[in-house]
Structure formats: structure tokens, C-alpha cells
């Protein structure tokens, strides 16, 4: 299996899982990119999965659907540090200059084979669950409705 075939197989595992789960998604097969929006308890979560044959990586990216206020950026960064210390997969990032908060993950596929829909599920499921768990808290912190202290205290419970 060469790098291009491997990248296509990884992409197929992700879209295959979304087909199995009857998730509606947009995709650009030539670019090995797929977008899926899942509406959870509060905000819709849009996930982008991108497979790079060159880098031999599967990348997950999701932008929180609100702009981070400049005067809340330290609070949000502090909350993200607490979250990143706890989550098992990926990381939340904050781009101060753009007011963007994202969830990102990257997995190597170098030399690997056997990309099944189970693999796709293991990428889509945790990413969605993690974002769903924290996006409303980040929104509340950004809006000044929740303090970082209260948020971090809630994580300990």
C-alpha cells in the first residue's frame, strides 16, 4: 500500500463510518476532506476530517461557533489549559489574533493498514463527544456567564 492508497483508505474509513451511522456529510473526495455537522444538546458541532497522503496524517478540526472576546481570552485560555489536561484525545486551541477557539487532533497513519469503519468511528466519536462536552462551557466563560474558577471546580467533581 503506498502513501496515496493509505490516505484514501483512511478517508474511506471515516466516510464509511459516517455512511453506516447515517450521518449527512459534505466531502471533497479529491482532497480527502469530509465535513460533518452534528447537532448536540446545544451548539451544532461541525467537524472537518482531512487526510494528507504527504504528511501521512489524519487531521480533525472543529471551530467553536462563537468569537472569543479579547477581554475574555485569558479566561478562555485558562479554561482550555484545564480541559487539555483532562481530555484523552486532541486539544483545544485558541488563536488570540483571530478570536478563534478550535478543537484539533492529528493521528499518524504511516505504514498502517486495515482501515475499517471502526477506525473511522474511533476518530469521529471521541472528537464529537469532547467538543459537545465543553463547547457550552467555553461559550459561557466567553460570555462572562461562568467563571474559570467555577468551571475548573466543576471539572474536579
Amino acid at each position, binding site marked *: 500500500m503506498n502513501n496515496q492508497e493509505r490516505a484514501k483508505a483512511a478517508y474511506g474509513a471515516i466516510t464509511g463510518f459516517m455512511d453506516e451511522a447515517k450521518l449527512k456529510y459534505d466531502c471533497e473526495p479529491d482532497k480527502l476532506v469530509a465535513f460533518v455537522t452534528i447537532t448536540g444538546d446545544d451548539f451544532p458541532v461541525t467537524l472537518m476530517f482531512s487526510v494528507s497522503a504527504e504528511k501521512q496524517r489524519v487531521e480533525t478540526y472543529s471551530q467553536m461557533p462563537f468569537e472569543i472576546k479579547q477581554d475574555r481570552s485569558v479566561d478562555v485560555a485558562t479554561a482550555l489549559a484545564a480541559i487539555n489536561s483532562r481530555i484523552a484525545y486532541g486539544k483545544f486551541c485558541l488563536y488570540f489574533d483571530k478570536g478563534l477557539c478550535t478543537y484539533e487532533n492529528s493521528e499518524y497513519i504511516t505504514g498502517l493498514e486495515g482501515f475499517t469503519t471502526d477506525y473511522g*468511528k474511533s476518530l469521529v466519536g471521541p472528537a464529537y463527544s469532547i467538543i459537545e462536552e465543553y463547547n457550552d462551557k467555553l461559550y459561557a466563560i466567553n460570555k462572562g456567564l461562568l467563571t474559570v474558577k467555577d468551571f475548573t471546580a466543576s471539572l474536579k467533581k
Partner: protein
Amino acid sequence: MTKRERADAVFKCYCDFLDGKNFKYQRDESERSIILQITGEDFPMTTLFKVEEEHERTFVFSKIPFEAQKEKLTDLIMATTFINQVLAIGAFCVDTENLYCSFESNEIYTGLEGFNAEYAERVIISAFSAIEKYNDKLFAINKGLMTVRDFSKQL
């Protein structure tokens, strides 16, 4: 391939890679964990690689070897936020309770096969490269020798 066989194969590929490169490391077969210490240009980097059969992933963890000063926690949080923006694999974390910074990463291998030296090299070396690149900067920020502003300009 069962979950157990897969976990064994992943663990073996890491060990084979490290053995092939003559790295000295602590290996726990029953836990499928490896503790590897590499001394870079400055700090020794001790990193745990643990293959988790149940979750079908490799967990990578490295504690940066200094205690975070309480009054520098916000600076360290800001610095790691900047680092995480540009880091392709893994994340730097700040534990504000236990006062340390860490590098953490996960590699999911659900259902996969073909774990070879090239795969092991990417997982292991990318972790060390990230740690080696930023541990001294975090140390300097923690010591007040570098400002977050100056650090962010370098990135």
C-alpha cells in the same frame, strides 16, 4: 487480529525501533509501557509511551522537569496556548493544581495493522522533537527570563 494482539504488535514495534537505534529504556511488558529518557541540548526528557489495549491507543506523556511557579501560571498557560497553535502532533498542558507542564499525545490504532519501525519512529521522534523544541522556552518563561510576548514573536 484481536485487541490484545494489536496492542502487542504496537508495543513490539516501539520496542523494535528503540532496540534498533540502541536506545536505553525501561520496558514493562505487562503494562505495555516504555519509559524513555533522552538528554537533548538542555534538559533530560523523560517520556512515557503506554499502549492501551482497551482504548486501542498509545498514550504519550512527558512531564517537563521543573515546578511551575504559581505567579507564572498565566504566562505558562499563554505560552502553551501559542505552542499548541503551531504544534502538529500532541499538546502542551499546564496542570495548575500540581504545578507542572507536560506534553501529551495520543495515537489511535483501532482496527489497524502494519505497525512498523517507520510508524514507531514518527510517534516517538515527533514527541521528542516537540518537547526538545519548547521545554527550554517554558523553563525561561517560568523563571522570568523570557516574556510570553517575546516568545510568541519567535513562533
